[in-house]
Every structure is written in C-alpha cells, then in structure tokens.
C-alpha cells in the first residue's frame, strides 16, 4: 500500500529533529515552565509525542522536567554552541540582569565555567547561542519586557530579551525575538506558539505574524475587555462596588481590561477553567510592557479610565439598561399565548382530522 502523505513532504519533515533549549535561569520564578506543564492545547506530552502529522520530532531541554542532572543536562547547551544541534529554538524565561555593573559577581548564572569555577551568566549563554538559533523566544513578561524584577529601584538593572539583544535584532532565519508575555504566560499560549514554530521549522507554516511589541497577532490582537464576559455590564454603566459576590464590571475596582492586550478571557487558564476576569479577578495588566510600574497601585481605578467609565455610568448606560430591561420584561420573558392546556388548539394550525376527548 502506498503511504498517504497528510501534509506535503511528510516523510521528510518528520525526519527533522528540532531541539528546544528552554533556559529558566533568567531573573525569573520559573512560573512559565510550571504553567507550561498545565497546558492542554497542546500539552507537553502532545508536543514530545508528535501529535500533528508532519511535525518534526521535538526534544525539549527544560530543567523543571529534565531526567538528566548537572553536566549531563547542560551538555545540550555546549552542543548547540558547537553547532551539533540544528535546528534549535532558544527560549529564555526571566529577565536579564545588567552584568556590567557587578564587578566579579553575577546576578544569574547557569552552569559553571570549568576554567575558573565561576558561574556562567545567563547573558553569556544568550551571547553564545542567539545567533545560532533558528528562532529565539522570550517567554513571560520578565523575558519579554523586564517585568517584576525590572521594577523601579531594582538593584540588578533587569531588562527584557529585546532590550538586551536590541529591538531590531533578527535571527539567522530573519525572525525577531518572538514575545509571549504574561505573568506567567497563559499555558496554552506557550505550547501553541512552540508547536507553531516547530511546524514553521519544518516548512509547514509561515513565519508567525508579530505586532510592534513582537507579540503573535493571533493571540494578542484583542483587549481583555473586548472578550470579557463582564463587558456587557460596562456598556450598561453597571459597575461592581466590592470584590467577590458583586459580579458586575470590575473597572472601578482596578481592572485594566479595556487597555490590556491579552486573550485570557477567551482561553481561560487551565483547560478553559479560570482566567482573571472570568472568575472575578481584576486584570492587573501583566502582559503589558509597562507592567508593573505603570499600573500600580493595582487595586485603584486608573485615573484615565474615568473618562469613559463616567459617561457609561451616568449617561448612556442607564438608558441602555432601562430599554433592555423593558424589552426582557415585555417581550423576552413573555411566552406566546398559544402555549396552554385548555380544551382547544390556538396555535394557528387548522386541524382536519382531530376529535375531542369523549366526543
């Protein structure tokens, strides 16, 4: 029997082995790696086991799940440096400290230099590998834009990967740093982009389309508010006044949803369950380049938000609410008159062969 090819050149693309070097040793909490283990679309094992026809074989090197320890684990980084792993995707999790300001010390390291016994900084690994990688991905807001370790008054001079490599930097295949922000990044956003890039390396998908902040457009094209299940309350000027059982729009309690690009309201958190506003949490803008400084204190309404919130609450919102309430009471909640159990049929149908009971 001839082998059917489900995608073009399936035999060849499945022969490719793509390595993923996932560095967790930026200034990070490893929350992205931990969150990645909860992804379901696709899951980690879906990627490793090759769930899509034609996808190249994927070997993931990530220290949260790795079987190997120490030198056996870190060998892949040396192999990649020497060109023995090709193609490979370099993922960086965590921001990069400014290692130019700390003398002989380090802010964050990965592995030890055999020559002098000192840690090799994560920045040094980025220098060694970024230009050899087929694609470079920044995962989580720390790696994409700096995030929490890069807050005002931080002692390490932390920055995101594009700040470090330069926003105009391109990989040898011409790709900019692919940024998947979020604190942590939404689990499926990470695995889906990873799967997409692997398909791209196999020639099965075009390069991912990114916006000016290097985010994949299909994931970060809409604001939280544009897909929030509480947005209807905003339209009707109906705002929650306390956290918890008050299920109305949270904007007055600090929600930044109208001005934050993020798909969590659509995707939920784990397997569609959860997600900030979906269960009653304010959006704290954790996917944004300005996070966290531009949004603190988180529990207060943003001053600029009042310009649209006040008209909604006092001008058009009450009108919409009244009109829709009237419509529900006088039309939607009314059943048509022909639904009854009387001794007659009033639906409009004219029966020819019916007989009354007992007739």
């Amino acid at each position, binding site marked *: 029997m001839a082998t059917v090819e489900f995608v073009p050149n399936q035999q060849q693309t499945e022969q490719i082995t793509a390595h993923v070097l996932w560095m967790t*040793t930026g200034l990070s909490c490893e929350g992205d790696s*931990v969150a990645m283990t909860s992804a379901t679309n696709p899951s980690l094992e879906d990627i490793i086991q090759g769930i899509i026809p034609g996808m190249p074989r994927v070997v993931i090197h990530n220290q949260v799940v790795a079987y190997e320890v120490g030198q056996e684990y870190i060998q892949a980084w040396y192999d990649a440096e020497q060109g023995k792993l090709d193609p490979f995707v370099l993922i960086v999790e965590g921001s990069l400290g400014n290692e130019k300001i700390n003398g002989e010390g380090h802010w*964050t390291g990965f592995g030890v230099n055999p020559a002098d016994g000192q840690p090799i900084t994560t920045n040094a690994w980025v220098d060694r590998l970024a230009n050899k990688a087929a694609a470079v991905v920044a995962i989580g807001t720390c790696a994409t834009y700096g995030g929490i370790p890069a807050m005002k008054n931080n002692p390490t001079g932390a920055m995101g990967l594009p700040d470090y490599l330069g926003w105009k930097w391109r990989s040898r295949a011409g790709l900019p740093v692919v940024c998947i922000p979020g604190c942590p990044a939404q689990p499926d956003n990470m695995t889906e982009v990873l799967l997409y890039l692997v398909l791209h390396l196999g020639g099965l998908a075009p390069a991912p389309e990114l916006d000016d902040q290097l985010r994949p457009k299909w994931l970060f094209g809409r604001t939280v508010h544009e897909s929030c299940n509480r947005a209807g309350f905003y339209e009707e000027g109906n705002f929650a006044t306390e956290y918890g059982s008050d299920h109305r729009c949270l904007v007055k309690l600090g929600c930044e949803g109208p001005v934050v690009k993020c798909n969590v309201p659509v995707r939920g958190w784990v397997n569609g369950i*959860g997600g900030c506003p979906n*269960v*009653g949490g304010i959006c704290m803008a954790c996917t944004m380049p300005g996070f966290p400084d531009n949004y603190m204190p988180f529990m207060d309404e943003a001053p600029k938000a009042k310009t649209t919130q006040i008209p909604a609450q006092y001008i058009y919102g009450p009108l919409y609410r009244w009109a829709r309430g009237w419509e529900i009471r006088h039309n939607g909640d009314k059943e048509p008159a022909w639904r009854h159990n009387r001794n007659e049929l009033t639906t409009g149908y004219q029966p020819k062969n019916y007989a009354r009971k007992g007739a």
Partner: protein
Amino acid sequence: MATIEQPTERKVVVKEMSWDPITRIVGSLGIHTEIDFTNQHVLKCYSTSMVFRGFDIFMKGIDPRDAHFITSRICGICGDNHCTCSCLNQNMAYGVKPPKLGDYAYNLAESADFMFDHAIFNDCMANVDFCEQMVKETNPTLLKTAEQTPAPHGDIHGYKTIAEIMRALNPFTGSFYLETLQVARYTREMYCLFGGRHTHPSTIMPGGVSADITHQTCTDYYVRLMRYIEYAKRTVPMHDDLYDFFLEQLPGYDMVGYRDTDLICWGCFDDPEYVDYSYRGMTEWGRHRYITPGLVFKGELVSTDLVEINLAIRILLGSSYFDDWSSEETFVDKDPLGNAVDKRHPWNKVTLPRPQKRDWADKYSWVVSPRMYDKRNDSYVACDTGGGPFARQWVTAKAGLVDIGYLKATGTSLQMVLPRTASMPEMELEWKIPEKSNAIERDRARSYHQAYSALVGLHCLEKALVEIRAGRTKSWNSFTVPSEAVSVGFHEAARGVLSHHMVIREGKIANYQPYPPTPWNANPRDVYGTPGPYEDAVQNTPIFEENGPETFKGVDIMRAVRSFDPCLPCGVHMYTGAGRVRKVQHRPTGLS
C-alpha cells in the same frame, strides 16, 4: 601457625563532584560535594544558588496593597502560597477579617495547590529518581530483585511487582507518571476556580477573595476533588510499597538524607470560627489551624505558640553575598505585645547585596542563613521544613490538636478516613511519626499529605456550601490602610514554612521581608560555621549507588536533596565529568 601480616596502606580516593544545575526542582540550585569513594560516603557538601532579584529592595515605598501581587512573583510554583501569606499579613496590618466564605476560599484554593504540588513533585520530579530507568542505571542488582518482589498492596494500586511500580514512574512513558501530569492539571483547575490563575492568582486579596463564588464553583470543585481522593487511595499504598522496598533491600538506606529532627512548621488553613488575624490573638488562633504550627528541637516539640516562634527567628549571614546590617536602622524594637525584637529578626533585616566571586571557603551563595534561636542554651539551630509535609505532619500529629472527624491527630499519628469514591470503597490511612528524619520519610510524608490536603479541602468545601446555601455569598470585606503598622503573615508553602514580615510607615511599605522554605533548607554555612540542612543531610548520606566514580550519577545525593522539595527559583551540576580528584590520602589501615 600464626602469621603476622605487615600493616598495609589503603588508598582513600576523595573526589570533588558537582551538580549544577539540579533539575526536576524549581529554581537555581547547585550542590558541590567531596565524596570518599573508598568508604562510600559524602565528606563535604556546599549548596549554592546563582539567582538574585532583590524583591525586598524594590518593594520599599510601594503601596502595601500591592504586596500580594508582587510577592506572588517570587516563586513560580508556590507563588499562590506567597500571595496568600501576604494577604494574611495585610489582614493583620489593616485589622480586617474576611467573611467566613472568604476564609474558606483561601483554604480551598491552598488545599488544591497542595494537592497539585505534592502530586507533580512526587511523581513527575522526585520519584523519577526511583523509576525503572534510573534504578537500572544506578542499582541494576536492585532492579533484578524488584522484578521478583511482589508489591504488598498490588490489589489496591494495580501494580503486581515493585519493578512494575518503577516502570510506571518512567518519565513520559510510565502510566503513573502520565496520569499524574493529568492530575496536576485538574487540581490546578480546582485552584483556578477560587484563585483565577495558577501560580500567580488574580483573586486572592487582603480582606478576602474576589472570586464570585456560587453553587457552580463548588460543584466544579467537588467532582474534581472526589476524583483526586480516588487517586490518593492508590497513590499512598503504591509509595509505601516502593519506599519500604528500598528500606528493606538496602539496609542503612534510612541514613540517606538523614539529619537531626530539628523541624519548623508555621501551620496553615485557618479555622474561620477562631481566626481574627490579629497579632494579639495569634497564639490562640494559630493553634486552631488545620495544620498546627510548631518548633521541634532534637525530636522534642518545644512550642506551638506562633508569637513565641516569631520572636525566635533570626537571619544570619556567613557565606552569602550580602553585607551585614547591624549599623542600619532598627524598624521594630518591641512587638505589638511589648516583647523585645532582635536586630537579626526579619522585621529589622535590611538587604544589602554585594555581588562577588564564588569562593567555597568564603562566600558562595545568594541564599542567607535563617536559624531558630534556642534560648535554653543560647544557640542558633538550623531547622528544616522536611520538604513541607514531613514537618507539618510531625508537628500536627504530636500536638494532637486537630480533630475534624475524618482527620484526627492522636499525639503519635494522623488518622485519615477517605470517603467512598466512584470505584473504590471507604479507606482508612494512618501516618505514624517515624523514628528518623530522612529522605524516604520526607517523600513518604508528602504522599500521605496528598490525602491530608484533600480532606482539608473536603471539610472546607462542605462548610463553604453551608454559607452559600444560607445566602451568605459575600467573600470580601473592605478595609483602610493605616499610616503605621507592624505585621506578619505565617503560612505554609507546599514545601514548608513561609513568613512575610512587614513594616508600614506613612501608608507605604518601609520594610518587607519574605522568608520562603528554601532559605531555611538550602542555606550555606552561617557565621558560626553551621551548615544548612541540605548540606548537613547530604554530608550524612552513605552511597548505595553501584557505579564507581567514573560513571557516578549521585542518585543517593539527588534523593537526599530532592526529598526537601527544593524551589530556589536553583540547581546541583556535574561540571568536571567524571570528577576531579581532590586528594589521595594514604592511611595505614593496621592489621587486617
């Protein structure tokens, strides 16, 4: 005829071995050792972490209401524990008590987190050290025995031999490993029902919880919880079989990861009937927690009083890349009850980083060295958290204060009754305080703690449903931030004690000091030369691995370290291949 033999010289080979990064944990940890391969034991161990971010520095001057959002980002696996701890801390500072439903929601979220965390860490990280592939590479003889050894509880968990259990734990192919990955997802769904997201929640707040909690929330939680309880019924006997096999087949294995029983547990899961979050009432409400706080020196439970425990905490330096703060400002000299507060207490700690070269003889880690002050003999004790469950269960069992029917502390044990589930009948479990604090018992306690956490979840769910059915759906109370306050949050991360100490001045944070479990466990030698618990436990570890120095994997050391469930957002690496020969000693061994 008697013969007199000449004294012979025996060569003692000592090698430096390093593992950096240590994988299958969260964070950056390196373990550097000197191993005596002739006598098969570890001589020296140094634990190091290479990451510094400086949370306590950049949190100065911010609005205290941001503290839970920011501190959650300290850790990627216990971020929600930090968030919750910060909320308990802020509740004390603001004098706010959530409605009961809010208190139960804190507990429901956190018990789901423990169910998740203990499952994924045990069977997708730590127990990979006990899987078939690993045992084949390190103790092939033992694997042969395992093939022939029937599993005593095989009728419950379904694996006929010990080797079958080991095979089930092989990464990405073993059935139990793969099942646990799934379990670690639906338990996080449970978390998200109340917390919004895992691991950095969006709904856990000071004053309560901002999740909109309805019947549906509880139904979604309930069905997953019962699925988990059924999983726990198979998990606990399976782990018992596996660990008992190691203890029986390798005599002396109870010394792997052994150290004195010096334990700390801050307790968690407050009872809404008692907790008011005040410092004044902390001794009393602390003892009503569903996990009892306690301080254990040399196997003796010396206190269950959170105020006394608070005052005994000291932060020491010695081998860390920080400058001393003794000439800096003192924030708190008396606690809210008028007790004296030490300069080395977290309330008075000032973080002064000094990056420098790593030097094993001097400074070699970004982790500081917390100690418990023992006033009886004026000493500083390096207590550990037993990876969380070991200390929690040890203290709770010993104190004998917890009794919620299906969960009872007896003074020597914990008795648990797991209800009937879809395909398994009711089951009773009993965890007894073990004689030793070692790697196997830490791992075993973690397994029993999966059941314990599920029962706390079940109890709180039933109580939450009472509130909802009575129409009491409010889960948050408002508060105002005072201009001055001194407060503390005591909580448990999955892997052990977690405290947040805060000083508020002029309505802003003047000092914020979070102490997670890992500084307690992974710390380097302190100023008195006392090694940290990982170092101490590894130094006591005998080597059972069958490989010689050339192919040495260090699996016994890995089991010792991973039993503490490290989360350094750290690692241990083998950087010199087969190991650098540190020294070759020639010692006369006398008459043979």
